[in-house]
């Protein structure tokens, strides 16, 4: 993935954002303020006002509409999230196998510090490429929660989904003989009544906030829709409508 630095990037302008993309974000109560890094980052601010609040909370099609927002500048790469994920979801200890990881980018001249750490995981996209290209429907979008799930019995290991994923969020699990990916800890935590993912739970720095975008009083909803605060998504050009947001502060 390209290096990312929202502070020092040149805004390539809203006019370069496709009309459909702009409409999609507006529906979510977010006005696009620009794209950066050759279109790999799209930033937006909330158009939220209490008058139409109830109206657009409905625009999140799932219930609960699980989502994560990352307070990116708080990430210290302690990697407790990764360790918790591995332990919870039995991710094998081999190179390239992860459900979530931390990217690093140098920012030697930035006021904010010399480096930035960027946590990444499956974006549980509203319009996922992976499910569209899977020939056996082994990967699919859960109708209720919107989580992108795997039915490993159907997976033939063709890795087409891996190529289709703009977030590098899938790996082949030799033990399962199937592709494995982040499912927001659906089987290991959420379906058992836990309220958050293992990674969010383990984060000591308040980076990963997990929640439900269909509820207005949810911390994730509130952060994403804070007035005048920029939030952004990664790889908007893929047009997949990700459900993982990033912000600072």
């Amino acid at each position: 993935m390209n290096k990312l630095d929202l502070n020092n990037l040149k805004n390539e302008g809203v006019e370069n954002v496709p009309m459909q993309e702009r409409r999609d974000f507006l529906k979510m109560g977010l006005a696009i303020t620009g794209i950066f890094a050759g279109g790999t980052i799209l930033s937006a601010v909330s158009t939220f006002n209490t008058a139409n609040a109830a109206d657009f909370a409905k625009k999140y099609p799932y219930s609960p509409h699980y989502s994560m927002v990352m307070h990116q500048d708080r990430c210290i790469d302690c990697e407790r999230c990764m360790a918790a994920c591995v332990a919870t979801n039995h991710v094998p200890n081999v190179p390239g196998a992860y459900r979530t990881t931390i990217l690093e980018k140098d920012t030697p001249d930035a006021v904010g510090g010399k480096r930035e750490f960027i946590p990444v995981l499956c974006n549980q996209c509203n319009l996922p490429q992976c499910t569209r290209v899977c020939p056996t429907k082994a990967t699919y979008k859960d109708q209720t929660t919107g989580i992108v799930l795997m039915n490993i019995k159907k997976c033939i290991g063709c890795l087409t989904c891996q190529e289709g994923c703009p977030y590098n969020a899938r790996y082949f699990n030799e033990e399962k003989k199937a592709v494995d990916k982040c499912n927001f800890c659906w089987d290991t935590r959420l379906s058992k009544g836990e309220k958050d993912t293992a990674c969010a739970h383990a984060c000591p720095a308040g980076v990963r906030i997990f929640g439900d975008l269909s509820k207005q009083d949810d911390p994730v909803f509130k952060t994403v829709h804070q007035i005048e605060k920029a939030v952004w998504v990664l790889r908007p050009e893929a047009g997949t409508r990700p459900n993982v947001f990033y912000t600072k502060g």
Partner: protein
Amino acid sequence: MTIRLITTVTALLALVTGLASAASYPEAPIVFDKPVTGVIFSHKVHMDKGLSCEMCHNRLFEMQAKKAQGNADFVMESLYQGKYCGACHNGSLAFAANTRCATCHIGVKGAKRLSDGGTQEETHEH
């Protein structure tokens, strides 16, 4: 009398050499790994800012690498209260400890790079 003078001179010399060796600080950065992995402290960077040894080595830190991380209170909350690094990293003497997280925190990746041989945090490529 002469003998006393010589003794004094020797004592003084010993003191001076003692000071000289005390004034050498470790070149390589110290990387804390508890409670979290990868917090960097570089003597060189701090000495270049014109700080004296005493500013840190009277009550803030002992002259022993990774001593402080044995204390249960070596956490951000203490820094915010002005302890340890927070004595200076309070927003007036130096950037505040609740800002620029990834300046002190080089993380698991940064710590690994340093232990894999690079002496300079800057030597890695991207």
